């Protein structure tokens, strides 16, 4: 546990007034290890520790806290601030329906999350159409169809159409039927795959989505920044959804993705069922990352 580790490192400082450079150096080593163990990206950790170091040196240690606790408090505040404010609302369109595009690496949880979002929107009194734009993965269309049926949500899939056309048609249908949202489930893809990244650009140009959300597996390690940066460059993300937070991963990918895209993390996937979606809590995530 970080606070205890820091306290051991800084225990000789009991009763001191201010944190010296040397105190802070010792503490920063522990912080750095904790963040790396939490899977925060190497470079992001470097920048973060430098920022915290700046804030911590010369800081007055509050009477009620030990030096270790004082440092943890600064780190926690800094981490929470970086995580952003709580922003779990989906942007609407001035001319509904608003398209919400879900993108990300293979297996991150897009299809499941698409349905969770539809359920979430319904609870807020909004009607969403679920569109199956993954024509590649065996059974992907059927997967979205089964999940949609399980919550009685409207579902659209194109017959032998390419993903861009499916998305266009879904938007047309949603407009005719008066839906507020269209949720586009796209195929998992590698950011290295130029053709597939071009497909995303085409879809975006065709539907002008109100939201382009990157779905990220919370267990992702150092690679999180690479994918996030590439998807952001290609699509222009408006937000992130972090999935599988019901596991025991520390989830440092959250900080990595946030720093490299600047996008809000809007929701957290916390289970396999279609109601397992929560608003993302920045402060809770900060505590989780620090361990």
């Amino acid at each position, binding site marked *: 546990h970080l606070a205890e580790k820091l306290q051991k490192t800084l225990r000789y400082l009991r009763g001191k007034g201010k944190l010296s450079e040397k105190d802070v150096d010792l503490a920063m080593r522990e912080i750095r290890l904790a963040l790396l163990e939490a899977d925060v990206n190497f470079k992001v950790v470097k920048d973060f520790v430098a920022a915290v170091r700046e804030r911590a040196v010369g800081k007055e240690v509050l009477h009620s806290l030990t030096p270790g606790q004082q440092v943890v408090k600064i780190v926690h505040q800094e981490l929470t601030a970086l995580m952003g404010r709580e922003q779990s609302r989906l942007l609407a369109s001035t001319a509904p329906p608003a398209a919400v595009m879900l993108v990300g690496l293979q*297996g991150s949880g897009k299809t499941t999350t698409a349905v969770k979002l539809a359920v979430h929107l319904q609870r807020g009194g909004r009607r969403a159409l679920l569109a199956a734009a993954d024509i590649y993965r065996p059974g992907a269309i059927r997967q979205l169809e089964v999940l949609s049926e399980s919550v009685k949500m409207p579902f659209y899939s194109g017959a032998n159409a390419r993903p861009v056309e499916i998305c266009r048609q879904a938007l047309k249908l949603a407009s005719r039927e008066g839906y507020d949202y269209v949720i586009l489930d796209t195929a998992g893809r*590698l950011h290295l795959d130029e053709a597939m990244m071009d497909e995303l650009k085409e879809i975006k140009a065709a539907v002008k989505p109100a939201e382009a959300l990157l779905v990220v597996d919370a267990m992702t390690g150092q690679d999180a920044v690479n994918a996030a940066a590439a998807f952001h460059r290609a699509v222009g993300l408006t937000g992130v959804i972090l999935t599988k937070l019901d596991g025991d991963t520390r989830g440092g990918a959250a900080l990595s993705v946030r720093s490299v895209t600047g996008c809000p993390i809007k929701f957290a996937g916390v289970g396999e069922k279609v109601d397992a979606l929560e608003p993302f809590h920045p402060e809770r995530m900060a505590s989780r990352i620090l361990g």
Partner: protein
Amino acid sequence: QLFRDGEIDDAFFETLEEALITGDVGVGAALQLVEQLRREAGRLRTRRREAARELLVVKITALLENPPAETLPAAKPLVILLVGVNGSGKTTTAAKLAYRYRRDGRRVMLVAGDTFRAAAIDQLQVWADRAGVELIRQQPGSDPSAVFFDALNAARARSADVIIGDTAGRLHTKTNLMEELKKINRVIGRALPGAPHQVLLVIDATTGHNGINQASRFNEAVPITGLILTKLDGTARGGIVVGVQDILKIPVCYVGIGEKIDDLEPFDAAAFARALLG
């Protein structure tokens, strides 16, 4: 340019640590490996970076080198079970393995052990058809243990050489799901003593430190005989398999390098170690 030849100094060891950490080897393993390298390089009095780098490649290769192939007679039928967390690539890998064995002239059957997730059976059916192997399946929602029990009896009756079982993705923190896995393992053993002969943990190459927890907890539930590292065709280097060796000596058997049915390769420890260091 990480290892451009030159003097060995602190900066050099730091760049090594960075390479290992960014490759997801894990902080503990990275620091340990570099510490050992410092001592060894010191003992060998090597002053060139290139030589030190080569030492590290050799070390990592040795950590990951698979034990020599077993000389026991192959089990017949050979039963392989794929397990792992959600989305790691189990279903796709089951199909790839089936295809590989079939190409080797074996009589293969796939078992649809994921009776829970939406369209999981449909997904595996498409793959089984592509692989040209039969899929043993029951209704979605059936008890996976029952599916495996019946499947093993059916497969034996049809003289299958290799039976590959797909299971539902599950987080190792979910006790009930880990209990379900234990039961599947027990029931398979009852249907065919000695089975499953291989239990392969499928790990996504993008996984960070959590991969170590996964290996440890899955192994507590059912002894894991091998790892399969998937999605190595991405930018992630999959170093977590090195981190896993720190706590459990589980060989990496295959790597997944794409989404097509033949995108599976036997694990090459030396090539992997070299790629890991960039």
